């Protein structure tokens, strides 16, 4: 889904939308939106089921035009909270909009739709998040491990991660 780049200089800031207007644009899809205004950039809380639709809308809508996915990452909130999050940092080059999307997932079998057909940046970022947190990205075109060896056990960035004792007869603990 390649977009025609809007060839504008970064000075075109007069058509910038503020956060409330951005929330208004996704309101028809997610209903009463939860927000987190303490974070930088300000965040919209999205459910895993709505995420793909929200991303397509934000990407395709000519008023928002989020053509770049800056960062995609996971967060493990630990066994106490028993939740996990996937955080999307969107950026719109022509309008200089920043936006954060947060999806909260259960810690057992976390699943969310892949956005790699909207922004291909997501392809590698999702592979990394999948191996590090054990989040499953549905519809990912290439779900292999990226940084870890293919036969590595466990998801290292989970808070309760215990590394394996030996990897290929080499002691892991240093």
């Amino acid at each position, binding site marked *: 889904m390649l977009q025609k780049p809007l060839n504008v200089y970064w000075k075109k800031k007069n058509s910038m939308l503020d956060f409330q207007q951005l929330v208004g644009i996704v309101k028809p899809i997610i209903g009463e939106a939860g927000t987190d205004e303490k974070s930088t950039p300000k965040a919209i809380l999205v459910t895993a089921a709505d995420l793909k639709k929200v991303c397509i809308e934000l990407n395709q809508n000519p008023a928002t035009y989020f*053509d770049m996915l800056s960062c995609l990452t996971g967060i493990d909130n630990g066994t106490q909270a028993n939740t996990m999050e996937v955080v999307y940092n969107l950026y719109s080059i022509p309008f200089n909009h920043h936006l954060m999307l947060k999806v909260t997932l259960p810690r057992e079998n976390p699943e969310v739709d892949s956005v790699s057909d909207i922004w*291909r*940046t997501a392809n590698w970022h999702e592979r990394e998040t999948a191996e590090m947190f054990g989040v499953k990205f549905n519809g990912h075109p290439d779900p292999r491990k990226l940084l870890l060896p293919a036969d590595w056990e466990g998801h290292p960035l989970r808070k309760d991660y215990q590394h394996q004792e030996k990897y290929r007869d080499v002691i892991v603990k240093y």
Partner: protein
Amino acid sequence: MESEPNKFREDGLRSEEMIINLGPQHPSTHGVLRLEVLMDGEIIKEVVPHLGYLHRCFEKHAENLPYNQVIPFVDRLDYVASMNSEHVYAMGVERMLGMADQIPKRIEYIRVLVAELNRIASHFIAIGTYGMDIGAFTPFFWVMHDREHILRLLEWTCGARLLYNYIWIGGLYYDTPVGFEERCREFMNYIKPKLQELETVLIENEIFIQRTANVGVLPLDLAINYGVTGPMLRGSGLRFDLRKVDGYSVYPELDFTVPIGEGKKGTVGDCWDRTWVRMQEIHESVKIIEQCLEKLLKEHKRTKEFDPHALLPKKIRPQAQDFYVRGETPKGELGFFFRADGTSDIPFRCKARSCSFSNLSVLPEISRGVLVADLIATIGSVDMVMGEVDR
């Protein structure tokens, strides 16, 4: 089970196809990048990068260290441009603490000065090794020789040649040594004719143009969709530089332009354009450094009372929040995503969004249907540092 199995299997191939393994130990892959290349005769059908040979668990380490102790690890991400990474990281934590606007001007100017010196050093490596990849040996020695001057200057400030730990949260390790600004100015006068020479010998060289023009063309829409930033994105023709867009630190007070690829020798976004953009950026960095020196010698002079440690926070404990900060390093947009929980001095989560990682991910797209020699030329023009790709 293999530890790093190939994506393509031998038994699924047609008779004219074969798999060639490139790297991980090969000088033209700039570190430990391994490429699995599916060939049809001499033509490349598909390139599959295999990463992780330099994975050092930066993010896991950062979850176990106080904010200020993460800085040496940040150095080791992009180890040829550590000052730039440190600058972005320190800026992010300062903004989270709400002290970003209290930093004295002299500190900010020194930060920009050392960061731009390091940007020149990084671009020297990019251009020099790129020339060597495609057969030009002499310019590599020239730029390494000139880079040595920069490393000596930076060593003088903090004692380390590559991994500085110089920019601290809220200040600096030391003020610049006495005589540093004068020596910097001497170096700037020395380097300017050298740059002209380098441009004539390498960039405008007919052999170099033949090898790089119209090779590895990266269209702008593809670049944005892949999150490509830095000289690669500018080489594709978009005037997008975070130093101008976000205007962080003292960059708004400095006068410099943002060069973009114009397709002078071929198509917009080819390997030549990317190298040319880097070359022009060195000229811009020289301009910035000269302005910084002017300010550091006149307006924000060294005084006895000036203490770069004065604002160092005793306790770095940001309020509970999620924070994404980004800045322009020589390779592109370096971002840090923090989650602070508000109760500890340790980041709950610290993710590094590295520019080399996203820039490299576009490689399979732009190297289909070319010869192996062109693939080498394309890898060199990406200018990735594997320490930053694998983190």
